[in-house]
């Protein structure tokens, strides 16, 4: 089999599954689970090819270079695909148990989720500026209906705000694409860097618009206002997907575009600015997470904070920072997936997620709390977790470039993360009060508890297997060094 069939399948098979599910009109969780299994196998099959040749390119339509749309699977894309595939398996198992009895919601979930999976794969594989715009919209419009699964009455405000910001973000991005196309005459990421004339106003403005548009989609600090309500209000399985993958996809685009086609246009000052935004996001998000009174909002604000770390690549722009930022994306994805699934279990058991009324859940929810704790280790960045490796790489980079202020940010961020994770755990392990209130919910089935734990364990394991993964990733295309 030709290796370039694999990326194409990664996009088309989930779409096919989603469309068939839509037409069938009856929920078929088995189809969805087979799909995510096949998806994982396809991604694993991609690894040897990418490891040997550095990248696999598929040409869609067979047209010549400046016109055709290509799919590109290089180290960076592959790692994101791998993260998506692993999370997809865990989330699908979780969702199978979670929506067992709700026919309507199950049908909608199993229609939208394969389509979202295909869209995410398409986004990670895209090598074309306009195609990225379409995939961004696709991801957004698959994600918002999923948020509504928690009950339209409760989530409609959050969904509307999410939609407004996402729409504005993608149109700002499109304005940037228009300006760059006017200058370069091509949309292909691989050709763009060479085709762009040096330092024109149109080029710089286009690059800035693209970056601002993506920052809105990635919920980076001044634009984070839509995130907590949407991620906190969605059903657990959906929150996991949104926090671990959907906003990550936008952050990924920033890395991909900055180190590739936008490389000739960006300046060190812009890098410092983005880094500063990231640092602010880390400190502000962590502080907000510490102050929240509801568990899912703690986890949602933690996402605002954790996304900031990926922005620390831009001011330093050395290989260690590159690896650290990407690795942080992976570790955070797995850990945050585990956190949201575990939080969903707690919510299911308690019927609410108010932190102050959580005491005494350590025995019935031991497995879920284990998942929460393990994932918390990675979020805090303690060894031997994936989060530790990522932060270590970022620290190395800040020492290497002599930019000590990022070192302080990293340490402060870790401390604040420890504060909010331990706050939750402390409340959960407190002895129950004398008169235990009625627990209206049910103990989550083992499948739901263990899928969270598996993700958390993977987040820890990530710290041990870093060497081969980092080798796969390589160094930034246009970065210094």
């Amino acid at each position, binding site marked *: 089999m030709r290796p370039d069939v694999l990326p194409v399948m990664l996009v088309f098979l989930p779409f096919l599954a989603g469309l068939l599910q839509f037409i069938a009109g009856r929920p078929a969780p088995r189809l969805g689970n087979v799909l995510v299994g096949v998806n994982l196998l396809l991604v694993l099959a991609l690894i040897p090819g990418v490891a040997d040749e550095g990248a696999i390119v598929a040409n869609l339509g*067979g047209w010549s270079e400046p016109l055709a749309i290509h799919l590109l699977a290089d180290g960076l894309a592959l790692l994101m695909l791998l993260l998506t595939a692993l999370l997809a398996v865990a989330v699908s198992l979780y969702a199978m148990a979670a929506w067992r009895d709700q026919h309507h919601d199950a049908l909608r979930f199993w229609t939208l989720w394969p389509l979202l999976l295909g*869209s995410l794969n398409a986004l990670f594989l895209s090598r074309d500026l306009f195609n990225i715009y379409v995939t961004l919209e696709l991801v957004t419009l698959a994600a918002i209906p999923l948020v509504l699964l928690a009950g*339209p009455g409760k989530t409609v405000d959050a969904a509307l705000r999410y939609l407004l910001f996402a729409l504005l973000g993608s149109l700002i991005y499109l304005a940037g694409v228009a300006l760059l196309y006017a200058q370069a*005459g091509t949309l292909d990421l691989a050709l763009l860097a060479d*085709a762009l*004339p040096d330092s024109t*106003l149109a080029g710089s403005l286009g690059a800035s618009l693209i970056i601002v548009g993506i920052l809105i989609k990635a919920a980076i600090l001044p634009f984070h206002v839509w995130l907590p309500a949407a991620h906190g209000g969605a059903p657990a399985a959906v929150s996991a997907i949104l926090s671990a993958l959907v906003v990550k996809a936008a952050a990924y685009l920033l890395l991909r575009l900055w180190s590739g086609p936008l490389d000739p246009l960006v300046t060190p000052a812009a890098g410092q600015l983005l880094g500063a935004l990231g640092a602010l996001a880390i400190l502000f998000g962590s502080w907000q997470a510490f102050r929240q009174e509801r568990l899912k909002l703690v986890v949602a604000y933690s996402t605002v904070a954790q996304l900031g770390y990926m922005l620390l690549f831009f001011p330093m722009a050395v290989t260690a920072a590159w690896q650290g930022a990407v690795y942080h994306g992976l570790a955070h994805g797995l850990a945050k997936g585990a956190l949201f699934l575990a939080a969903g279990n707690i919510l299911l058991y308690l019927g609410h997620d108010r932190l102050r009324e959580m005491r005494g859940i350590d025995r019935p929810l031991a497995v879920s709390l284990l998942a929460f704790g393990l994932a918390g280790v990675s979020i805090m960045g303690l060894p031997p977790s994936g989060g530790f490796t990522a932060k270590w790489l970022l620290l190395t980079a800040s020492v290497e470039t002599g930019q000590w202020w990022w070192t302080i940010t990293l340490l402060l961020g870790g401390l604040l993360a420890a504060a909010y994770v331990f706050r939750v755990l402390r409340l959960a392990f407190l002895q129950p009060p004398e008169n235990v209130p009625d627990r209206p919910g049910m103990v989550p089935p083992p499948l739901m508890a263990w899928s969270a734990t598996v993700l958390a364990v993977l987040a820890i394991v990530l710290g041990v297997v870093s060497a081969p993964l980092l080798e796969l990733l390589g160094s930034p295309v246009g970065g210094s060094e």
Partner: protein
Amino acid sequence: MTALDSLLALLLLLLAARCVSARSLLQAIVAFIVLGLLLALSWVRLEAPDLALAEAAIGAGLLGVLLLGTWRSLPLGHGNERIPLPWQGLRPALITTGCTVLAVLLTVALHQHPEQAAMSGLAALDQLDAAGVDQPVTAVLLNFRAYDTLLEMGVLLMALIGTLMLDSPLPRDTELPARTMLPATLAQLFLPLILLIGLYLVWAGAYSPGGAFQGGAVLAGAGVLLILTGFGEGDGRDGWVLRALLAGGALVFTLAGLLLIPVTGAFMAYPQGLVTPIMVLIEFSLALSIALSLLLLYTGTPGLRRRGER
């Protein structure tokens, strides 16, 4: 023609400012609709008649009807607000400054012309012969960049799924001011004409301005006319045939992409001899999907039925 352009630009900006600043939501919507008409006119001026067709049918027509319907379903006075003027406070002043700077920068940037011509565009015109259609835009949409169009159909489908989840259709039992036969007569006179134009546009898309999108939008307009004149209405039930038609546009691309891999050895590439029939098939299923999706986005219901039917 420069005088015409200047006047167009002036009117566009005036209407946009009106749309943002009108106190009444209804007036803002009306300004937006007229702006759509003028925008279509300026695209005609800029040698983009097919886009003008799309904007007139989708951007001003269907969206305008939907906006008016949504406005009707909101409580009276909902959405009436007066936005602060630039000099009324620090925040409006800052935002005004920012937006003005952005507009000036964009104007300058749009006047910067690079020396080299658009490579992708030239390549598209070069390879038009192999594309199976004569109309360059249709060739780009359905062949050169068919992958984008597939994903776009996905967007349309998911917007529809999301809309249906909300279960808030446009209010159905609205009535016309005067109890008169005229609108019904109008529908009977116009319906065949609209259907004819719609089908013609789909068919003609291969060699002249038009295409699946414009044709689909016009067919959706025919449906809206039937609903507005009381012949049809949204229905709470759907059937698999309808769902298959809705998904058909995306499905036919997906299948064409997957099944042809062994035949052509490339993805989403169509075999030389069959390229024109495949294009026609794709174009009609796309148009049907688009028409139905837009119509259901308008009604906000999963299905359709004749008025009075159960």
